[in-house]
Each structure stands twice: as C-alpha cells, then as structure tokens.
C-alpha cells in the first residue's frame, strides 16, 4: 500500500517521528495532567496531615482518613469501570468483608496491623475469586445487577448471623498499634493513623498506575472497548475480567481492613447499596479511568456529606441531585475534563487531524 495514506488527510506528519513515538507522546500528554493532579493530591494530603496534626485536630483528620479509606473503594470501582468497563454496584461487599475480617482478627486473634492487612488481602482475593467467577459471566448491565444482588445477599446473611453480631455488628475492636520498625503510631492517634492510611493508599495508587501502563492494563482496556474481538487475538477476556475483579475486590478489602481500626466497629450497613453507590459517585465526580480522580471524588464527597448532614436532613436529595448534575454536565468527571483540556491544547499545537 502507498507508504503514505495521506490522501485522506491534510495533517503533515511530524517529521521523522515513528508512529510508536507519536503514540507515546500522545499518551504522555494524556497522563501528564493526571500525574500533576496526583502529585498535588498527595502533597496536599501530607501538608494537611502535618498542619492539622500540629494543630491537634481530631475530627477533620479522622474524617480525612475515612475519605482516604473510601477513596480506595472508589479506586477499586475505577479499576472495574474505567479499565475493564464493568460497573460494579456492589463494591461495598468486598469492603465490608475486609472490614469484618479485620474486626475479627483484631478482636479474636491478634492486635496486629500487619496481620489484618495480610488477612484482608487474602479475604479480598478469595471473595473476589468467588464473586468474580459468578459475576463476570454476565455482561454489561447484567454484571452491574449481579454484583448488586451479590452484595445484597451477603449483607443479608451477615445481618442474620448471630456469630457476626447480626444487625448490631461487632463493636469493641481494640485500638491497634501500627509499627513500621522505624516509626510507630496508634490507630487512635488522628495524625499518625492518617499517615498510615495515606501510605497504604499511595502504595495502592502507584501500583495501579504502574499496571495501567502494562500490557495487562492495556488488555483490560481492550476488553472494555471490544470484548468480542479479544479472543480472536488470543486473549481470554474472562480471565482478564476475573483478574480485574480480584484486583478490585482486594483493594476494597484492604480498605475494609483499615476501617475497624479507625472506627472501632463494623456493621452490615458497610456493605449496603448506599456504600457502593457512594464509591461510584466519588468515581464519577473525580473522573472514571483516571485513577487519581476517584481519590479526589472521595474526599469531596465525604466532606460534602459531612457538611450537608448538618445543614439539611434531605441529604439523599442533595446526593441524588449531585449524581444527576455530575452525570449530565460532567460525565467525564473533574479530572476527565482536565485531561481533555490538556489533550485539546496539545492537539491544536500539533495542528490537528484532517
């Protein structure tokens, strides 16, 4: 074929650059905006932690810690939705399972932070495998509704299980001591625990950022865009989806493991639909497929909810309206737009398409 297909286009090719180089350049531009946003996020979080820690504040630090924990759940929603194109309406299930596992470990086995992390990873992987094997058979909206049903059922079972505290949940979870060898803190130290959680979230975030650039991450995008073609290339979309599902459930479960350390209790409500939708709203606010977006979204949502709860008793209405505004006017979310602007700028600089 003609070495230059440019009959169809007026765009001059950037001199000498190979397609791969140009493809990379474009991807870098897309990510640049997000990377700056993530640096701002984590730097801001550290500054906040230091400032409020010095101030001796409790409430806001603990609220921010909670926002980070829920942010991880939103991240897990983003892995499924933004990468594999699967909308999970039951992500709180894995959060809840991690939380229950953490609570039981702390109460009955050992007051060890590391053991809780290990167990919640294990619980996340196992429950993700089981849930995933069921859910990934379904596609599109069926997937959404299956995950929804799965979470409902398990929450109900726990609600009915006396050994797990039934509807009352589990209280009286001891305050753990978190030790990194060189530094240690207790879960009831607002600033200390904030930094512990921040570190965990940062590790998760960086891990996902790395994954998004690997062939695995790209294959997930392939599943999202055209699952049907994947097997003809030699991929197994079911395996890829399962891997994404397990990854997401594990992250949600880790976040769950942190929760009882912060709040000292667990209850079936942690797995309810509301909790799952909050994670989705946070993801949508921040921007699906952006990874850092859900963390922003979670912070915004948690603080917003904390505020409107005081102002009005119609928070449901406010959240509902927020939902609709985001979906209609900002379907790409905060960072989605940021990315778009940056990309558009770079496009106009290069001269654009035909």
């Amino acid at each position: 074929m003609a070495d230059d297909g440019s009959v169809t286009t007026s765009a001059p090719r950037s001199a000498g650059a190979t397609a791969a180089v140009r493809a990379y350049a474009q991807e870098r531009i897309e990510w640049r905006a997000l990377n700056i946003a993530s640096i701002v996020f984590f730097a801001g979080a550290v500054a906040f932690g230091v400032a409020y820690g010095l101030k001796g504040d409790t409430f806001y630090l603990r609220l921010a810690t909670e926002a980070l924990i829920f942010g991880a759940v939103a991240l897990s929603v983003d892995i499924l939705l933004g990468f594999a194109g699967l909308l999970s309406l039951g992500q709180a299930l894995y959060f809840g399972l991690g939380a229950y596992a953490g609570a039981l470990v702390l109460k009955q086995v050992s007051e060890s932070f590391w053991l809780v992390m290990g167990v919640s990873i294990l619980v996340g992987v196992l429950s993700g495998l089981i849930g995933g094997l069921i859910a990934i058979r379904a596609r599109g909206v069926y997937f959404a509704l299956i995950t929804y049903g799965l979470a409902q059922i398990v929450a109900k079972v726990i609600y009915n299980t006396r050994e797990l505290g039934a509807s009352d949940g589990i209280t009286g979870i001891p305050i753990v001591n978190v030790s990194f060898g060189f530094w240690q803190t207790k879960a009831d130290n607002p600033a200390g625990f904030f930094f512990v959680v921040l570190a965990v979230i940062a590790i998760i975030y960086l891990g996902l950022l790395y994954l998004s650039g690997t062939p695995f991450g790209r294959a997930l995008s392939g599943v999202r865009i055209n699952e049907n073609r994947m097997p003809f290339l030699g991929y197994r979309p079911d395996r890829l989806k399962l891997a994404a599902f397990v990854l997401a459930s594990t992250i949600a479960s880790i976040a769950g493991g942190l929760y009882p350390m912060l709040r000292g209790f667990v209850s079936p409500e942690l797995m309810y639909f509301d909790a799952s939708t909050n994670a989705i709203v946070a993801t949508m606010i921040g921007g699906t497929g952006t990874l850092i977006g859900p963390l922003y979204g979670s912070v915004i949502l948690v603080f917003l909810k904390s505020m409107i709860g005081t102002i009005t008793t119609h928070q449901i209405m406010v959240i509902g309206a927020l939902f609709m505004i985001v979906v209609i006017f900002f379907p790409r979310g905060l960072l989605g737009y940021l990315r778009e602007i940056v990309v558009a700028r770079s496009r106009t600089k290069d001269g654009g398409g035909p």
Partner: protein
Amino acid sequence: MLEIRDLHSHYGFSHVLQGVNLTLRPGECVGLFGRNGVGKTTTMRAIAGWIKQISGSITYNGQEIGGLASNAICRLGIGFVPEDRRIFPGLTVEENLKLGLMQTAGRSGAQEAAALERAYDLFPRLKQRYRQMGTTLSGGEQQMLAIARVLVGDQKLLLIDEPTEGLAPQIVDEIFAIMRKLKSEGHAILLVEQNVKRALDITDRICAMERGRIILEGDGNSQADRDALMKAIAV
C-alpha cells in the same frame, strides 16, 4: 432538486467536509467518487440528517433541510441506503421491510402490499427468508434487504452508499439493473460506489471528491470527463 452549498462538518477535532458544493436535478443520477475517507459517506449522512454538526446549506426543492430531524427529511421524499446496511437485528426480514413503508405516508393498504410484493419480486431470496431475524442474513442478503427496505417507500431522491459492497457478481448486475430502472421511473439518485467502471454506466453526472471537497465535476457520458475522473481518484 437538491442543492448543497459550502457544506462543512466536524467530527471532534477533525474537519471532515471542507466546503462541499453539489447540485442534483430531478431524475438525475449523480455519482460521487473518491478514495477512502474523503468524506463521501459524511456527505450522505449530512443530507440524511444523521450529522448535526454541520454548517453551510442543504436545500431540497427550495426548502432548507440542514438541521432537520432525519424523519422529517425522509418525509420530504429522501431515501437513504447507508453503507453499513443497518438492518434492525431484533426484527424479522419482513418487519424490516415493512418499516420501509413508513417513508411514504398516506398510501392505501393495497398500495403498500403492492410495494412489498414488488420488493420481494426484485429479491426473491428475501422472500425465502422473510421470517428470519434480519441480522442472521448473510452479508449480501443484508445488503439486498437494505436496498429493498428503501425501495418499498416512494422516495423521489435516493442516497445510495456503496450498494454493491459484498455482493456476488450476479447480484451486482441485478442491483445496477434496478438502479437503472429506478432512474427510468424518474427517481433521482446520489450514488457512492467504488466500482467506478460499472457505476459510470448509469451516472449522468460525476463528481470526484478529495479531502472533503468536490474537486471535479463532469458529464457522466463524456469520455474526457470520465478519464479526468479516473485520474483524479486514482492518485
């Protein structure tokens, strides 16, 4: 009949149509040719009202139709056979076909039945398969259905985008025969076709398109213009 003036359209960042000018007179068959991606389909879609982001003017019998809803455009007497067939998957062959009857309002039941019958006569294969779901037809059969579906209406202007794509030679012959017949019945046709040689048999006027513009217009029956066209699109 159809008059396009300085038509522009954009898909996101790309400026696809960059000032198309095209005129079509009643009963005339105009061929629109060009390499892949020059904007032939986009032009058709703009006329049919599938693309909303356009500027410039498209008038049909003196009425501005740019920006009208597709169904309003259809009701004015413009029929469209799109390049990718667009058979409705959940409808049977017959239901697909019957839907075409909607194009022309105010016909009696008998007239509609006759229109269906004529379509089945043109494509007996469709008659054999009439209860099958539309998208389980083979590629070629779907193409026949797409054409038949528009023919059951009584449209004065037909936009036909690559009608012979994927058809066996035998059927290709039939399709050209049908188009010739349509022309003789007084239908105006805007035809996009890659099989230029065959298309030239029925076109009255020919246009070559490149980079979103019509770069050449000529008489379909003049050998000089034909040669120029071939040269223009075979860059």
